[in-house]
């Protein structure tokens, strides 16, 4: 009897999970289905989830009517720069974890303090600073303010503190330079943190919207999401084109996420949030 109850309970949970999951999926299914619809199918009542005459023309138009190739290139540049930032975070985390130097704690607290400052407070002054440095409407102006992050530095430091110092001393005795020790010894050891931070950095950079929108004045510097918002404004009634643009942004990130999702969940365990 009790066993039967347990089976019913489990069945109920699975049913709830599936219903909820399907509801979460609706916007994605709607987006992908619609991106293959020809324009005249959008005004059909009742709306169809999947196109009756599927077409690739919406995707083709992304590159013909809009400069999605340029937006893609800019987005990939930002992604690459953000990976450089990832190494800068790791280096800082390494110094805080494995070196003793005057002012170490003060610097670390300053870095932690930056986590508490809301983006709305720094947004305007950061723009003024970028303006003063004559970096408005440049790639550097888009990339630099978000290049390093306190949370990532903190995570690297936490993880690196657990690595025995003997390992580093041995390498130093063998005459390895400090940079070499970092890149050839530390980086491979902290691979799990790099995996989590790498994918989160990638997602963040790929999706970056607000700061490029503020800094980029001409289309040559637009990212995919700024381009998509331009498309939304210019072709407000062409739903097919908009849906294809959205799918073009979302599908790659989902594929990458599915490949690496295991690491993200492990990452939260590493960071000790439990």
């Amino acid at each position, binding site marked *: 009897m009790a066993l039967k109850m347990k089976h019913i309970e489990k069945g109920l949970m699975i049913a709830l999970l599936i219903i909820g999951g399907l509801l979460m999926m609706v916007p994605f299914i709607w987006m992908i289905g619609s991106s293959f619809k020809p324009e005249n199918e959008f005004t059909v009542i009742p709306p169809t989830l999947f196109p009756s005459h599927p077409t690739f023309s919406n995707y083709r138009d992304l590159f013909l009517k809009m400069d999605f190739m340029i937006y893609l290139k800019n987005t990939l540049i930002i992604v690459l720069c953000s990976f450089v930032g990832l190494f800068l975070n790791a280096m800082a985390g390494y110094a*805080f974890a494995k070196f003793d130097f005057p002012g170490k704690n003060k610097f670390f607290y*300053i870095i932690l303090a930056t986590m508490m400052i809301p983006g709305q407070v720094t*947004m305007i002054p950061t723009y003024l600073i970028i303006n003063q440095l004559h970096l408005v409407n440049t790639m550097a102006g888009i990339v630099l303010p978000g290049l390093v992050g306190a949370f990532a530095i903190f995570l690297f430091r936490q993880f690196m503190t657990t690595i025995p110092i003997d390992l580093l001393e041995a390498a130093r005795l063998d005459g390895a330079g400090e940079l070499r020790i970092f890149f050839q010894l530390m980086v491979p050891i902290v691979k799990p943190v790099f995996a989590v931070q790498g994918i989160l950095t990638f997602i963040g950079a790929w999706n970056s*919207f607000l700061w490029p929108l503020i800094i980029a004045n001409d289309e040559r510097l637009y990212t995919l999401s700024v381009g*998509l918002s331009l498309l*939304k404004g210019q072709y407000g009634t062409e739903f097919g084109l908009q849906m294809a643009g959205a799918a073009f942004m979302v599908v790659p990130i989902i594929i990458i996420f599915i490949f690496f999702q295991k690491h993200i969940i492990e990452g939260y*365990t590493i960071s000790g949030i439990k």
Partner: protein
Amino acid sequence: MSSFVKQWHKNKYPYMFIAPAVILLTLFSIIPIIIALVISFTDMDLVGLADYSNISSAGFANYINIFKDPIFLKSMYNTLIYVVIGVPLVVLASMGVALLLNYGTSWLFKSFRVIYYMPSITNIVAVAVVWGYLYNGSYGLFNYILSIFGLPAQQWLQDPTLAKLSLILLAFWKSIGLNMIIFLAALQGIPRSYYEAAEIDGATGWKKLRYITVPLLGFATFFVTITTLIGWIQFFEEPLVMTKGGPLNATMSMALFIYNNGFQLSKFGYAAAGSFVLFIIIIIVTLIQFAVKKKEVEY
């Protein structure tokens, strides 16, 4: 001087390693907060940006005027609505989803974990495009579903009250994933033996949930509540991309008000004052949270 050189040689490497991060964070986080504080007491605008000699002190005028600004007061009210409805909804739903996902370990549960997480990695502009179409008054899916049940079509984003709720629904959908993962990590840290002991004592499913799981999720709940709360106080991207604060400022949030004044109207000083009001609210709310947390029983 020579001792400085000696110090430098000894500590050259750690300083080199932290230098890029410290310089960038100082330049784009520490200095900006000082600048924000200073310009919040000035009348800085586009004219001031072109030539700094045109900036003059405004005393507390920005802070006084902002509390007389009907749009700012409206944005405070809207933000309160967002927080009061959004935060409990997100915390409870993400805990519920995590409990469901923790029920089994088969491929089914693993794939649904991915599905529930997907919205939170989805780009906000893409979200706006897709949801804008879902909410479309004439051709949208939501109104079609209503029509199946014989209900009248709704103006999801044009009706002042409904527009707020529509944005909350969208943000809710987007924020379950990340919080659900935090709860899931916490659930996986609860030892099986606790449940086994309770089962020997004859505890049923509900009692186990009530007396073991929920109390042991205490820290995760605290963490999720505080980050969700801070996030919703800064509610910004959803109204920016979906409604631009309209109709009639019905969806205007405090953060969007600051952005609009700073970057659309170029009232930098005024916007900076607004951002400090927001910052102070966040600090107060966080302190209250920590005070409440301290009173709770530790397990």
